[in-house]
Protein backbone atom coordinates (compact mmCIF):
# COMPACT_ATOMS: atom_id res chain seq x y z
CA UNK A 1 0.00 0.00 0.00
CA UNK A 2 2.78 2.39 0.98
CA UNK A 3 6.33 1.81 -0.13
CA UNK A 4 9.31 4.11 0.44
CA UNK A 5 12.67 3.35 -1.12
CA UNK A 6 15.75 5.43 -0.32
CA UNK A 7 13.64 8.49 0.24
CA UNK A 8 15.44 11.70 1.15
CA UNK A 9 13.88 15.07 1.82
CA UNK A 10 15.83 18.29 2.04
CA UNK A 11 14.03 21.54 2.63
CA UNK A 12 14.90 24.71 0.80
CA UNK A 13 16.93 25.98 3.74
CA UNK A 14 19.26 23.00 3.43
CA UNK A 15 17.75 21.21 6.41
CA UNK A 16 17.73 17.46 5.81
CA UNK A 17 14.58 16.00 7.34
CA UNK A 18 14.91 12.50 5.87
CA UNK A 19 18.23 11.02 4.79
CA UNK A 20 17.37 7.63 3.40
CA UNK A 21 14.12 5.97 4.34
CA UNK A 22 12.94 2.62 3.01
CA UNK A 23 9.99 0.59 4.26
CA UNK A 24 6.84 -1.11 3.07
CA UNK A 25 3.41 -1.12 4.65
CA UNK A 26 1.24 -3.85 3.19
CA UNK A 27 -2.45 -3.37 2.47
CA UNK A 28 -4.50 -3.95 5.61
CA UNK A 29 -1.53 -3.41 7.91
CA UNK A 30 -1.39 -1.04 10.88
CA UNK A 31 2.01 0.48 11.50
CA UNK A 32 3.35 3.06 13.94
CA UNK A 33 6.06 5.54 13.10
CA UNK A 34 7.90 6.56 16.24
CA UNK A 35 10.76 8.82 17.04
CA UNK A 36 11.52 12.00 18.95
CA UNK A 37 10.12 15.24 17.73
CA UNK A 38 12.25 16.48 14.88
CA UNK A 39 13.09 12.93 13.80
CA UNK A 40 11.18 13.45 10.54
CA UNK A 41 7.85 11.73 11.32
CA UNK A 42 5.70 14.57 10.03
CA UNK A 43 7.82 14.98 6.92
CA UNK A 44 7.51 11.27 6.19
CA UNK A 45 3.72 11.38 6.50
CA UNK A 46 3.47 14.52 4.35
CA UNK A 47 5.20 12.71 1.51
CA UNK A 48 2.36 10.19 1.27
CA UNK A 49 -0.45 12.60 0.19
CA UNK A 50 2.07 14.71 -1.77
CA UNK A 51 1.90 17.65 0.63
CA UNK A 52 5.68 17.50 0.27
CA UNK A 53 7.65 15.93 -2.57
CA UNK A 54 10.72 13.75 -1.99
CA UNK A 55 14.11 15.20 -2.94
CA UNK A 56 15.20 11.74 -4.05
CA UNK A 57 14.00 8.18 -3.85
CA UNK A 58 10.50 6.99 -4.61
CA UNK A 59 7.25 7.08 -2.68
CA UNK A 60 4.69 4.61 -4.01
CA UNK A 61 1.15 4.84 -2.66
CA UNK A 62 -1.44 2.40 -3.92
CA UNK A 63 0.69 1.68 -6.98
CA UNK A 64 1.17 5.37 -7.84
CA UNK A 65 4.54 7.09 -7.78
CA UNK A 66 3.55 10.08 -5.69
CA UNK A 67 6.76 12.01 -6.27
CA UNK A 68 6.12 12.09 -10.02
CA UNK A 69 2.41 12.83 -9.80
CA UNK A 70 1.10 15.81 -11.77
CA UNK A 71 -0.32 18.67 -9.75
CA UNK A 72 -3.80 18.11 -11.16
CA UNK A 73 -3.80 14.45 -10.06
CA UNK A 74 -2.99 15.17 -6.43
CA UNK A 75 -6.58 15.90 -5.25
CA UNK A 76 -7.69 12.46 -6.47
CA UNK A 77 -4.78 10.82 -4.62
CA UNK A 78 -5.76 12.66 -1.44
CA UNK A 79 -9.39 11.61 -1.64
CA UNK A 80 -8.26 8.04 -1.19
CA UNK A 81 -6.15 8.89 1.85
CA UNK A 82 -7.76 9.83 5.14
CA UNK A 83 -5.61 12.33 6.99
CA UNK A 84 -5.76 13.18 10.67
CA UNK A 85 -3.53 16.06 11.62
CA UNK A 86 -2.04 16.93 14.95
CA UNK A 87 -3.81 20.30 14.83
CA UNK A 88 -7.00 18.73 13.38
CA UNK A 89 -7.51 21.50 10.83
CA UNK A 90 -11.22 21.72 11.56
CA UNK A 91 -13.31 24.62 10.34
CA UNK A 92 -14.85 26.56 13.21
CA UNK A 93 -17.28 28.56 11.09
CA UNK A 94 -19.59 25.56 10.64
CA UNK A 95 -21.15 22.70 12.52
CA UNK A 96 -19.63 19.32 13.32
CA UNK A 97 -21.86 17.81 10.64
CA UNK A 98 -20.77 20.31 7.98
CA UNK A 99 -17.14 19.65 8.77
CA UNK A 100 -17.65 16.00 7.91
CA UNK A 101 -19.64 16.96 4.79
CA UNK A 102 -16.71 18.98 3.40
CA UNK A 103 -14.82 16.16 1.63
CA UNK A 104 -18.07 14.88 0.14
CA UNK A 105 -18.75 18.26 -1.44
CA UNK A 106 -15.67 17.95 -3.67
CA UNK A 107 -16.85 14.77 -5.31
CA UNK A 108 -20.40 15.98 -6.01
CA UNK A 109 -22.30 13.35 -4.03
CA UNK A 110 -26.07 13.54 -3.96
CA UNK A 111 -27.03 15.50 -0.83
CA UNK A 112 -29.00 12.69 0.77
CA UNK A 113 -26.28 10.13 0.17
CA UNK A 114 -23.66 12.56 1.47
CA UNK A 115 -25.65 13.28 4.63
CA UNK A 116 -26.13 9.56 5.23
CA UNK A 117 -22.39 8.94 4.91
CA UNK A 118 -21.50 11.87 7.14
CA UNK A 119 -23.82 10.62 9.89
CA UNK A 120 -22.41 7.10 9.58
CA UNK A 121 -18.90 8.48 10.01
CA UNK A 122 -19.95 10.58 13.01
CA UNK A 123 -21.65 7.57 14.49
CA UNK A 124 -18.47 5.49 14.22
CA UNK A 125 -16.49 8.01 16.27
CA UNK A 126 -19.34 8.50 18.76
CA UNK A 127 -20.20 12.10 17.83
CA UNK A 128 -23.57 11.66 16.16
CA UNK A 129 -25.33 13.38 19.06
CA UNK A 130 -23.09 16.42 18.63
CA UNK A 131 -23.63 16.94 14.90
CA UNK A 132 -25.18 20.38 15.39
CA UNK A 133 -22.49 21.65 17.74
CA UNK A 134 -19.67 23.89 16.68
CA UNK A 135 -16.29 22.14 16.85
CA UNK A 136 -15.12 24.79 19.31
CA UNK A 137 -17.60 23.38 21.83
CA UNK A 138 -15.97 19.96 21.67
CA UNK A 139 -13.21 18.70 23.96
CA UNK A 140 -9.74 18.01 22.56
CA UNK A 141 -10.45 14.29 22.27
CA UNK A 142 -13.81 14.94 20.60
CA UNK A 143 -12.22 17.33 18.12
CA UNK A 144 -9.70 14.66 17.22
CA UNK A 145 -12.51 12.16 16.75
CA UNK A 146 -14.29 14.64 14.52
CA UNK A 147 -11.09 14.91 12.47
CA UNK A 148 -11.11 11.13 12.12
CA UNK A 149 -14.75 11.15 11.00
CA UNK A 150 -13.88 13.68 8.30
CA UNK A 151 -10.86 11.59 7.27
CA UNK A 152 -12.84 8.39 6.81
CA UNK A 153 -16.08 9.77 5.33
CA UNK A 154 -14.80 9.18 1.78
CA UNK A 155 -14.00 5.56 2.77
CA UNK A 156 -10.28 5.78 2.02
CA UNK A 157 -8.10 2.71 1.67
CA UNK A 158 -5.37 4.38 3.70
CA UNK A 159 -5.68 6.32 6.95
CA UNK A 160 -2.75 8.31 8.30
CA UNK A 161 -2.52 10.11 11.61
CA UNK A 162 0.16 12.61 12.55
CA UNK A 163 0.46 12.61 16.34
CA UNK A 164 -3.30 12.18 16.72
CA UNK A 165 -2.96 11.64 20.47
CA UNK A 166 -0.68 14.53 21.24
CA UNK A 167 -2.05 16.91 23.89
CA UNK A 168 -4.66 14.34 24.98
CA UNK A 169 -5.03 12.64 28.33
CA UNK A 170 -4.31 8.91 28.46
CA UNK A 171 -7.97 7.90 28.32
CA UNK A 172 -8.83 10.08 25.32
CA UNK A 173 -5.63 8.99 23.58
CA UNK A 174 -6.49 5.34 24.03
CA UNK A 175 -9.97 5.94 22.65
CA UNK A 176 -8.54 7.65 19.56
CA UNK A 177 -6.15 4.79 18.91
CA UNK A 178 -8.95 2.28 19.41
CA UNK A 179 -10.87 3.98 16.63
CA UNK A 180 -7.85 3.71 14.32
CA UNK A 181 -7.59 0.02 15.22
CA UNK A 182 -11.31 -0.45 14.48
CA UNK A 183 -10.85 0.94 11.00
CA UNK A 184 -7.83 -1.28 10.48
CA UNK A 185 -9.94 -4.29 11.42
CA UNK A 186 -12.33 -3.58 8.55
CA UNK A 187 -9.46 -3.55 6.08
CA UNK A 188 -8.19 0.03 6.10
CA UNK A 189 -4.41 0.39 6.03
CA UNK A 190 -3.38 2.62 8.93
CA UNK A 191 -0.19 4.58 9.53
CA UNK A 192 0.20 6.53 12.77
CA UNK A 193 3.08 8.77 13.79
CA UNK A 194 3.54 9.20 17.52
CA UNK A 195 6.26 9.89 20.03
CA UNK A 196 4.40 7.97 22.74
CA UNK A 197 6.45 4.78 22.95
CA UNK A 198 4.41 3.29 25.80
CA UNK A 199 1.18 3.59 23.85
CA UNK A 200 2.71 1.92 20.82
CA UNK A 201 3.99 -1.05 22.80
CA UNK A 202 0.53 -1.78 24.12
CA UNK A 203 -0.73 -2.58 20.65
CA UNK A 204 2.15 -4.83 19.55
CA UNK A 205 1.98 -3.79 15.90
CA UNK A 206 4.62 -3.00 13.30
CA UNK A 207 6.83 -0.11 14.41
CA UNK A 208 9.02 2.00 12.17
CA UNK A 209 11.43 3.90 14.38
CA UNK A 210 12.82 7.07 12.86
CA UNK A 211 16.12 8.35 14.10
CA UNK A 212 17.93 11.30 12.58
CA UNK A 213 16.19 10.89 9.23
CA UNK A 214 16.61 7.12 8.92
CA UNK A 215 14.63 4.05 9.94
CA UNK A 216 16.55 2.61 12.88
Amino acid at each position, binding site marked *: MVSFSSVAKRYAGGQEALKSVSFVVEPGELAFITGRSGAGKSTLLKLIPAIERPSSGSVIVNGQNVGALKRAAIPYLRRNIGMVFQDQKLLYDRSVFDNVMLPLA*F*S*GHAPREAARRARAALDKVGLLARERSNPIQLSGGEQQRLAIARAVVNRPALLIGDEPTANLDAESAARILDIFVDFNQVGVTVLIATHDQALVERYGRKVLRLEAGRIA
Partner: protein
Amino acid sequence: MSAWLRLHRQAFFSALRRLGALNALVIGVALSLPAGGYAVLDGLRAVAGRFALDAQVSVFLRGDLKRADAEALGKALRADRRIASVRFVSREEALQELAAVQGMPEVIAALGQNPLPDTFVVTAKDDTLEALAAELGKLPGVAHVQADAAWARRLAALAGIGRIALWLLSALLGIGLVAVTFNTIRLQILTQREEIEVSKLIGATDAFIRRPFYYLGLLQGAAGGAVAIAIVAAGLALLNREVAVLAESYGSSFRFAFLDPGDALAVVAFAGMLGWLGAHLSVSRHLRQIEAS
Protein backbone atom coordinates in the same frame (compact mmCIF):
# COMPACT_ATOMS: atom_id res chain seq x y z
CA MET B 1 -28.56 14.97 -11.44
CA SER B 2 -24.98 14.50 -12.58
CA ALA B 3 -22.11 15.21 -10.20
CA TRP B 4 -20.85 17.91 -12.55
CA LEU B 5 -24.16 19.77 -12.49
CA ARG B 6 -24.40 19.38 -8.74
CA LEU B 7 -20.93 20.85 -8.26
CA HIS B 8 -21.90 23.87 -10.35
CA ARG B 9 -25.18 24.37 -8.56
CA GLN B 10 -23.36 24.15 -5.26
CA ALA B 11 -20.80 26.75 -6.38
CA PHE B 12 -23.55 29.00 -7.73
CA PHE B 13 -25.51 29.07 -4.48
CA SER B 14 -22.37 29.43 -2.42
CA ALA B 15 -21.54 32.50 -4.52
CA LEU B 16 -25.09 33.80 -4.26
CA ARG B 17 -24.90 33.70 -0.46
CA ARG B 18 -21.76 35.82 -0.53
CA LEU B 19 -23.07 38.34 -3.03
CA GLY B 20 -22.95 41.80 -1.48
CA ALA B 21 -25.72 44.27 -2.30
CA LEU B 22 -23.37 47.19 -1.76
CA ASN B 23 -20.85 46.02 -4.35
CA ALA B 24 -23.61 45.50 -6.88
CA LEU B 25 -24.87 49.01 -6.14
CA VAL B 26 -21.42 50.56 -6.62
CA ILE B 27 -21.00 48.78 -9.94
CA GLY B 28 -24.56 49.63 -10.94
CA VAL B 29 -24.15 53.36 -10.27
CA ALA B 30 -20.91 53.41 -12.21
CA LEU B 31 -22.36 51.53 -15.18
CA SER B 32 -25.55 53.61 -15.24
CA LEU B 33 -23.51 56.58 -16.51
CA PRO B 34 -22.49 55.13 -19.87
CA ALA B 35 -25.72 53.12 -20.21
CA GLY B 36 -27.84 56.22 -19.57
CA GLY B 37 -25.64 58.32 -21.80
CA TYR B 38 -26.09 55.80 -24.55
CA ALA B 39 -29.89 55.94 -24.24
CA VAL B 40 -29.93 59.76 -24.32
CA LEU B 41 -27.53 59.93 -27.23
CA ASP B 42 -29.53 57.36 -29.12
CA GLY B 43 -32.62 59.54 -28.66
CA LEU B 44 -30.82 62.65 -29.89
CA ARG B 45 -29.52 60.79 -32.89
CA ALA B 46 -33.05 59.79 -33.77
CA VAL B 47 -34.05 63.49 -33.72
CA ALA B 48 -31.11 64.50 -35.89
CA GLY B 49 -31.79 61.61 -38.23
CA ARG B 50 -35.19 63.04 -39.17
CA PHE B 51 -33.42 65.77 -41.08
CA ALA B 52 -31.51 64.97 -44.19
CA LEU B 53 -27.86 64.84 -43.41
CA ASP B 54 -26.96 65.03 -47.09
CA ALA B 55 -24.79 67.92 -48.07
CA GLN B 56 -27.65 69.91 -49.58
CA VAL B 57 -27.83 73.54 -50.52
CA SER B 58 -30.99 75.36 -51.54
CA VAL B 59 -30.26 78.03 -54.14
CA PHE B 60 -33.13 80.53 -54.32
CA LEU B 61 -33.29 82.55 -57.56
CA ARG B 62 -34.26 86.16 -57.93
CA GLY B 63 -37.97 86.61 -58.58
CA ASP B 64 -37.40 88.60 -61.75
CA LEU B 65 -35.13 86.01 -63.34
CA LYS B 66 -36.38 84.69 -66.66
CA ARG B 67 -37.01 80.94 -66.95
CA ALA B 68 -34.49 80.68 -69.80
CA ASP B 69 -31.77 82.28 -67.64
CA ALA B 70 -32.69 79.90 -64.88
CA GLU B 71 -32.30 76.95 -67.22
CA ALA B 72 -28.87 78.22 -68.29
CA LEU B 73 -27.86 78.51 -64.66
CA GLY B 74 -29.09 74.94 -64.09
CA LYS B 75 -26.89 73.73 -66.94
CA ALA B 76 -23.90 75.48 -65.44
CA LEU B 77 -24.59 73.92 -62.06
CA ARG B 78 -24.89 70.45 -63.56
CA ALA B 79 -21.52 70.91 -65.26
CA ASP B 80 -19.85 71.74 -61.93
CA ARG B 81 -17.69 68.81 -60.79
CA ARG B 82 -18.26 69.43 -57.09
CA ILE B 83 -21.97 68.94 -57.50
CA ALA B 84 -23.54 65.51 -57.40
CA SER B 85 -27.08 66.35 -58.41
CA VAL B 86 -29.30 69.30 -59.11
CA ARG B 87 -33.05 69.36 -58.74
CA PHE B 88 -35.09 72.23 -60.06
CA VAL B 89 -38.13 73.21 -58.01
CA SER B 90 -40.22 75.77 -59.90
CA ARG B 91 -42.12 78.42 -57.94
CA GLU B 92 -45.38 76.73 -58.96
CA GLU B 93 -44.26 73.37 -57.62
CA ALA B 94 -43.08 75.03 -54.44
CA LEU B 95 -46.47 76.67 -54.01
CA GLN B 96 -48.21 73.33 -54.49
CA GLU B 97 -45.98 71.76 -51.86
CA LEU B 98 -46.72 74.59 -49.48
CA ALA B 99 -50.44 74.33 -50.15
CA ALA B 100 -50.34 70.73 -49.04
CA VAL B 101 -49.40 71.85 -45.54
CA GLN B 102 -52.38 72.21 -43.26
CA GLY B 103 -53.58 75.79 -42.81
CA MET B 104 -51.46 77.15 -45.63
CA PRO B 105 -54.04 77.39 -48.48
CA GLU B 106 -55.84 80.19 -46.59
CA VAL B 107 -52.58 82.04 -46.15
CA ILE B 108 -51.71 81.62 -49.83
CA ALA B 109 -55.16 82.79 -50.89
CA ALA B 110 -54.74 85.90 -48.75
CA LEU B 111 -51.47 86.71 -50.48
CA GLY B 112 -53.10 86.81 -53.90
CA GLN B 113 -49.90 86.03 -55.76
CA ASN B 114 -47.13 83.45 -55.52
CA PRO B 115 -44.37 84.84 -53.30
CA LEU B 116 -42.04 81.89 -53.83
CA PRO B 117 -38.94 81.92 -56.02
CA ASP B 118 -37.65 79.24 -58.34
CA THR B 119 -35.14 77.06 -56.54
CA PHE B 120 -32.31 74.68 -57.28
CA VAL B 121 -31.74 72.00 -54.65
CA VAL B 122 -28.07 71.18 -55.04
CA THR B 123 -26.42 68.15 -53.50
CA ALA B 124 -22.66 68.51 -53.07
CA LYS B 125 -20.30 65.63 -53.71
CA ASP B 126 -18.06 66.13 -50.68
CA ASP B 127 -17.85 68.10 -47.48
CA THR B 128 -17.01 71.45 -49.04
CA LEU B 129 -20.58 72.49 -48.48
CA GLU B 130 -20.01 75.88 -46.92
CA ALA B 131 -17.46 77.01 -49.51
CA LEU B 132 -19.74 75.84 -52.29
CA ALA B 133 -22.72 77.67 -50.78
CA ALA B 134 -20.74 80.92 -50.58
CA GLU B 135 -19.68 80.58 -54.20
CA LEU B 136 -23.19 79.79 -55.43
CA GLY B 137 -24.45 82.89 -53.62
CA LYS B 138 -22.29 85.09 -55.85
CA LEU B 139 -23.71 83.72 -59.10
CA PRO B 140 -25.85 86.17 -61.09
CA GLY B 141 -29.56 85.67 -60.66
CA VAL B 142 -29.19 84.02 -57.24
CA ALA B 143 -31.05 85.78 -54.45
CA HIS B 144 -30.15 83.64 -51.48
CA VAL B 145 -28.37 80.39 -50.63
CA GLN B 146 -29.21 78.23 -47.66
CA ALA B 147 -27.14 75.23 -46.47
CA ASP B 148 -30.08 73.40 -44.88
CA ALA B 149 -28.25 70.52 -43.33
CA ALA B 150 -25.45 72.44 -41.72
CA TRP B 151 -26.93 72.51 -38.24
CA ALA B 152 -28.04 68.90 -38.49
CA ARG B 153 -24.51 67.99 -39.45
CA ARG B 154 -23.17 69.91 -36.50
CA LEU B 155 -25.55 68.04 -34.25
CA ALA B 156 -24.42 64.75 -35.76
CA ALA B 157 -20.79 65.73 -35.21
CA LEU B 158 -21.56 66.61 -31.60
CA ALA B 159 -23.30 63.26 -31.19
CA GLY B 160 -20.20 61.63 -32.64
CA ILE B 161 -18.02 63.32 -30.05
CA GLY B 162 -20.48 62.31 -27.37
CA ARG B 163 -20.31 58.72 -28.57
CA ILE B 164 -16.52 58.65 -28.35
CA ALA B 165 -16.70 60.17 -24.90
CA LEU B 166 -19.17 57.46 -23.90
CA TRP B 167 -16.89 54.75 -25.22
CA LEU B 168 -14.02 56.17 -23.20
CA LEU B 169 -16.21 56.38 -20.12
CA SER B 170 -17.41 52.82 -20.66
CA ALA B 171 -13.87 51.56 -21.03
CA LEU B 172 -12.73 53.35 -17.88
CA LEU B 173 -15.68 52.16 -15.84
CA GLY B 174 -15.23 48.68 -17.27
CA ILE B 175 -11.69 48.67 -15.94
CA GLY B 176 -13.09 49.97 -12.67
CA LEU B 177 -15.55 47.08 -12.57
CA VAL B 178 -12.78 44.57 -13.12
CA ALA B 179 -10.76 46.20 -10.35
CA VAL B 180 -13.69 46.21 -7.91
CA THR B 181 -14.34 42.54 -8.60
CA PHE B 182 -10.65 41.74 -8.31
CA ASN B 183 -10.61 43.26 -4.86
CA THR B 184 -13.90 41.68 -3.75
CA ILE B 185 -12.61 38.26 -4.70
CA ARG B 186 -9.27 38.92 -3.04
CA LEU B 187 -10.99 39.80 0.23
CA GLN B 188 -13.27 36.78 -0.12
CA ILE B 189 -10.28 34.52 -0.65
CA LEU B 190 -8.61 35.98 2.44
CA THR B 191 -11.79 35.43 4.46
CA GLN B 192 -12.02 31.84 3.32
CA ARG B 193 -8.32 31.16 3.48
CA GLU B 194 -8.60 28.46 6.11
CA GLU B 195 -11.42 26.67 4.34
CA ILE B 196 -9.47 26.76 1.08
CA GLU B 197 -6.33 25.47 2.75
CA VAL B 198 -8.13 22.58 4.44
CA SER B 199 -10.13 21.77 1.31
CA LYS B 200 -7.00 21.55 -0.80
CA LEU B 201 -5.40 19.37 1.83
CA ILE B 202 -8.17 16.81 1.81
CA GLY B 203 -8.73 16.47 -1.91
CA ALA B 204 -10.49 19.48 -3.42
CA THR B 205 -9.44 20.17 -7.01
CA ASP B 206 -8.36 23.65 -8.06
CA ALA B 207 -11.49 23.85 -10.19
CA PHE B 208 -13.66 23.17 -7.14
CA ILE B 209 -11.94 25.90 -5.16
CA ARG B 210 -12.15 28.43 -7.99
CA ARG B 211 -15.67 27.79 -9.16
CA PRO B 212 -17.54 29.77 -6.46
CA PHE B 213 -15.27 32.77 -7.00
CA TYR B 214 -15.91 32.78 -10.73
CA TYR B 215 -19.62 32.64 -10.03
CA LEU B 216 -19.30 35.42 -7.48
CA GLY B 217 -17.52 37.67 -9.98
CA LEU B 218 -20.05 36.86 -12.68
CA LEU B 219 -23.07 37.38 -10.43
CA GLN B 220 -21.73 40.57 -8.91
CA GLY B 221 -21.03 42.04 -12.34
CA ALA B 222 -24.41 40.99 -13.71
CA ALA B 223 -26.21 42.28 -10.61
CA GLY B 224 -24.38 45.59 -11.08
CA GLY B 225 -25.50 45.61 -14.72
CA ALA B 226 -29.11 45.01 -13.65
CA VAL B 227 -28.90 47.83 -11.09
CA ALA B 228 -27.54 50.11 -13.84
CA ILE B 229 -30.47 49.22 -16.11
CA ALA B 230 -32.90 49.99 -13.29
CA ILE B 231 -31.22 53.34 -12.63
CA VAL B 232 -31.34 54.24 -16.32
CA ALA B 233 -35.00 53.24 -16.55
CA ALA B 234 -35.89 55.37 -13.54
CA GLY B 235 -33.76 58.26 -14.83
CA LEU B 236 -35.32 58.21 -18.30
CA ALA B 237 -38.83 58.02 -16.87
CA LEU B 238 -38.07 61.12 -14.81
CA LEU B 239 -36.48 62.89 -17.76
CA ASN B 240 -39.31 62.01 -20.13
CA ARG B 241 -41.88 63.85 -18.00
CA GLU B 242 -40.09 67.12 -18.77
CA VAL B 243 -39.18 66.11 -22.30
CA ALA B 244 -42.84 65.42 -23.06
CA VAL B 245 -43.79 68.98 -22.10
CA LEU B 246 -40.99 70.43 -24.20
CA ALA B 247 -41.69 68.19 -27.20
CA GLU B 248 -45.39 68.99 -27.10
CA SER B 249 -44.62 72.66 -27.47
CA TYR B 250 -42.98 71.74 -30.78
CA GLY B 251 -45.94 69.56 -31.73
CA SER B 252 -43.80 66.46 -31.32
CA SER B 253 -44.45 63.33 -29.36
CA PHE B 254 -40.73 62.70 -28.87
CA ARG B 255 -39.63 60.70 -25.84
CA PHE B 256 -36.33 59.16 -24.91
CA ALA B 257 -36.80 55.49 -25.63
CA PHE B 258 -35.65 53.07 -22.96
CA LEU B 259 -32.79 50.75 -23.96
CA ASP B 260 -34.30 47.98 -26.03
CA PRO B 261 -34.31 44.52 -24.42
CA GLY B 262 -31.33 43.40 -26.47
CA ASP B 263 -29.23 46.36 -25.35
CA ALA B 264 -30.33 45.96 -21.73
CA LEU B 265 -29.40 42.30 -21.84
CA ALA B 266 -26.06 43.19 -23.44
CA VAL B 267 -25.28 45.59 -20.57
CA VAL B 268 -26.00 42.87 -17.98
CA ALA B 269 -24.08 40.23 -19.93
CA PHE B 270 -21.12 42.52 -20.51
CA ALA B 271 -20.99 43.52 -16.84
CA GLY B 272 -21.17 39.84 -15.92
CA MET B 273 -18.28 39.08 -18.26
CA LEU B 274 -16.14 41.83 -16.79
CA GLY B 275 -16.92 40.50 -13.32
CA TRP B 276 -15.87 37.07 -14.45
CA LEU B 277 -12.64 38.54 -15.80
CA GLY B 278 -11.94 40.33 -12.51
CA ALA B 279 -12.56 37.08 -10.65
CA HIS B 280 -10.28 35.22 -13.03
CA LEU B 281 -7.42 37.67 -12.52
CA SER B 282 -7.89 37.65 -8.76
CA VAL B 283 -8.19 33.88 -8.45
CA SER B 284 -5.16 33.28 -10.66
CA ARG B 285 -3.12 35.64 -8.57
CA HIS B 286 -4.25 34.79 -5.08
CA LEU B 287 -5.23 31.13 -4.96
CA ARG B 288 -1.83 29.81 -5.89
CA GLN B 289 -0.39 31.44 -2.82
CA ILE B 290 -2.56 29.33 -0.59
CA GLU B 291 -0.88 25.97 -0.35
CA ALA B 292 -1.25 23.79 2.67
CA SER B 293 1.87 22.91 4.56
